[in-house]
């Protein structure tokens, strides 16, 4: 190893820093163990420590070409786009599940996004703009995430074998994230394109007809599982990746995050399934009048919950 690193630095071997007197090699052993025990007993000791202010070689101009800053930006963009999509997912689930309260509630939510109050009359193109923005972030996130995909069959095979051999929770989670992400390329695109091109077709009857008469329920069922699992694992990994919510004990923080992740998945899967069932039932009941838009106050099911309205319609 040369003494000069080629960047104007004088390189020195990393001899032990000024630490308490150790005596001999046995002393070193004892100290290492003592520190180890201390670290394991006091998780806060594991937290990164900032070095005190010091002169960081400001005069040394690196001789090599300056490394691109884009890897850092792309990494942050991947995280930011993932966070945006996950938050959108949460909001979206609450919006669509408003059908469980009443038809009118969902109708009101749908019309709200058409900015009727702003423009006087509902403007579906506003929904298209929102969907277009989400689609753009979706495509950006997919493109950025693809950088992490196995790039060849060899890489795919090596990782699959590694995962099977290691039997490690977070490694397995990444594999699930990979495949759910891959599925979302197609499932998410179909849904977003549909909403982009038919922004006015969002409403109690319109959505129910699309799901049942339009035969989109299998796609939505798959999409629900893929997106909720992908999103929950993604948020969990995002927190680990950037060291968020670690608390004083990172190991306990990670256990907490896993519980939250599982809770997130179960809650939104449950909510999504019940919501989808409500739309399917309404779609079945409304099948003979498919295409008829929902008009508040003009239908017998007004004010009833999605499930109840479907049953009422069926009885009639």
């Amino acid at each position: 190893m040369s003494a000069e690193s080629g960047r104007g630095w004088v390189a020195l071997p990393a001899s032990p820093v000024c630490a308490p007197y150790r005596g001999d090699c046995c002393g070193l052993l004892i100290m290492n163990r003592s520190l180890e025990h201390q670290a394991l007993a006091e998780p806060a000791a594991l937290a990164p420590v900032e070095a005190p202010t010091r002169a960081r070689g400001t005069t040394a101009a690196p001789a090599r070409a300056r490394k691109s800053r884009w890897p850092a930006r792309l990494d942050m963009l991947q995280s930011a786009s993932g966070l945006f999509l996950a938050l959108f997912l949460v909001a979206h689930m609450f919006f669509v599940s408003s059908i469980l309260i009443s038809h009118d509630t969902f109708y009101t939510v749908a019309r709200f996004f058409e900015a009727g109050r702003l423009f006087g009359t509902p403007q579906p193109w506003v929904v298209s703009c929102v969907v277009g923005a989400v689609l753009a972030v979706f495509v950006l996130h997919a493109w950025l995430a693809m950088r992490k995909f196995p790039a060849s069959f060899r890489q795919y095979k090596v990782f699959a074998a590694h995962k099977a051999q290691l039997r490690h929770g977070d490694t397995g989670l990444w594999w699930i994230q990979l495949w759910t992400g891959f599925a979302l390329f197609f499932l998410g695109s179909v849904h977003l394109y549909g909403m982009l091109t038919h922004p006015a077709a969002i409403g109690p009857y319109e959505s129910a007809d699309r799901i049942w008469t339009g035969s989109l329920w299998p796609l939505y069922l798959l999409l629900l599982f893929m997106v909720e699992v992908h999103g929950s694992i993604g948020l969990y990994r995002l927190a680990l990746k950037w060291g968020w919510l670690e608390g004083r004990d990172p190991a306990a923080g990670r256990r907490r995050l896993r519980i939250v992740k599982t809770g997130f998945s179960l809650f939104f899967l449950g909510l999504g399934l019940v919501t989808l069932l409500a739309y399917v039932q309404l779609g079945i009941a409304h099948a003979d009048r498919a295409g008829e838009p929902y008009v508040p106050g003009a239908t017998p099911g007004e004010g009833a919950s999605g499930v109840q309205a479907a049953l009422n319609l069926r009885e009639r």
Partner: protein
Amino acid sequence: MSAPAKPRCLTLRILRSAPGTHVEPEWQDFAIEEGEGMTLFIALNEIRQNLDPSLQFDFVCRAGICGSCGMLIDGRPGLACRTLTKDLGATITLAPLPVFELIGDLSVNTGKWMRGTAERLETWIHRQQQPELTALEAPMEPELAEAIYELDRCIECGCCVAGCGTLRMREDFVGAVGLNKITRFRLDPRDERSDEDFYELIGDDNGVFGCMSLLGCHDVCPKGLPLQTQIAFLRRKMAVVGFK
């Protein structure tokens, strides 16, 4: 008074290989009687002493200090000297650590890989001036010295390397051992490099931004190093440089 339990008969299924001899790698079973407090290191010595003197595996310290006896134990990286057989089943599979150059059987050349990483990441103290060798070294706060030692506890056993899915896929990835070393030198006030200098070493997809946070490294590290927090910390610091 009950009779002492009969010791278990252990089967150690070991992946035997001899690179350069055109002999295909194969699994070989060795049956030994389990002793009290037996570690895998002791079991392997039993085999070498009584059953097959040609069995190759590495060891030096027998106490989890040297990092020589890293191997795949039932598929997970670990140190033979710190693994008790009582914590494992009656059949134990042992294989050499992947990624590293195979010497034979369970013996791999971690030193060559670690040396390459040290040179690539320049893991030594960088200063603008030659130090005064006769002058007293500047004092350091004990907390800082201990924080540096905490990261210096890495024994370069290679377990984190073998446990990293990213590194298994992309061999140029620097791995947790390298990132941990960078955080160690970043802490050291005698090293005058700035974050911009460290970015030149790890600011790409083969460095800290390539880490997919699978945390296999953190979970298999036999020294319990805080790799999860250190890598996240380094990622935040390098991300800031990315916007300068």
